[in-house]
């Protein structure tokens, strides 16, 4: 189990390194798809070849290795929007951090929340990710967007919570 755990962590770190290299070279247009490709598709495609190259490693060990890698990858992929989308909460935290004990007035913090900073860039992200279409200035969901929206609506209902406040 020790070698499986260590190998899975190394596998994940290799993908993380690859991701940083790709982002540095050329920022992909559809970032969620690129992350899915690097962290999920490439390792899934490589593992059958690796298992043939290393026949002494049992198939269960490969399954465990991939599962831990996918768990770590899902944690990273879901955290990634905070890096890219300039998470408002983290921006507030950074501003408060810089201000120290004096703190920051509510009015100063409100500057970031102007629509130009937080709204239009998100629509562009959704278009780049193929979740919405924009035609003649009108925006609608793609089938992928519908599936994702439906999932979140069902999820909130299952929890018994009203729609989020976004």
């Amino acid at each position, binding site marked *: 189990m020790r070698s499986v755990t260590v190998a899975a962590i190394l596998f994940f770190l290799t993908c993380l390194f690859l991701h940083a290299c790709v982002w540095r070279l050329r920022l992909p247009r559809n970032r969620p798809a690129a992350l899915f490709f690097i962290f999920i598709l490439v390792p899934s495609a490589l593992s059958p070849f690796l298992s043939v190259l290393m026949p002494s490693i049992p198939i269960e060990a490969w399954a465990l290795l991939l599962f831990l890698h996918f768990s770590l990858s899902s944690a990273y992929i879901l955290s990634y929007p905070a*890096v890219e989308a300039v998470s408002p909460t983290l921006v507030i935290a*950074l501003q408060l951090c810089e201000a120290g004990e004096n703190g920051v007035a509510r009015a100063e913090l409100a500057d970031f929340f102007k629509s130009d900073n937080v709204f239009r860039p*998100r629509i562009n992200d959704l278009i780049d990710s193929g979740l919405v279409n924009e035609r003649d200035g009108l925006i609608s969901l793609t089938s992928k967007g519908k599936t994702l*929206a439906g999932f979140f609506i069902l999820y909130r209902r299952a929890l018994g919570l009203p729609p989020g406040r976004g």
Partner: protein
Amino acid sequence: MAKVFFISILSPLAVFAFHIVSIRVFGLERKLAGQSIVGLSALAGYLPVALALVSTGVLKEEGWWAAIYVFISYSALAYSYFHIYNMSETARRIRILRELYPDRVMSALELESGYNAIGMLENRLERLVSTGQADERGDRYVLKGRLIRYAAKAVAWWAGVLGLPFKKF
């Protein structure tokens, strides 16, 4: 190894089950911030996972590394679950998708008209204060918690590594 695999795959159900029970049975959402409830549910989830490791004999058969493996994978999945919840609660992208669901067609201007900048700021400040990460002193806010401070710095650093502009306002 098969037992380790099944315990790991089933482990995220523990967070989800605790989360549903804490809202539907105990109504904790009226007393605590949503993120705190998920955090507590994730912590509570370690207990059934540990019990599964002991009761199925995995700890005896596979040793401590099996437990380390299961706890790392559970922690990563519980953290993923936290993000899914957080997205459902605060993400603007999810809100836009929800407003367009299932077949609505809107202009960017119409979508923006439902956007309340002050409300959005209030939500976040309220959450930072209720989770103990910030203090409200009159009209000013002061950072209190270390967790959010380190998280913000780590994110800004990683954005720099990736060559992304992490704008500060």
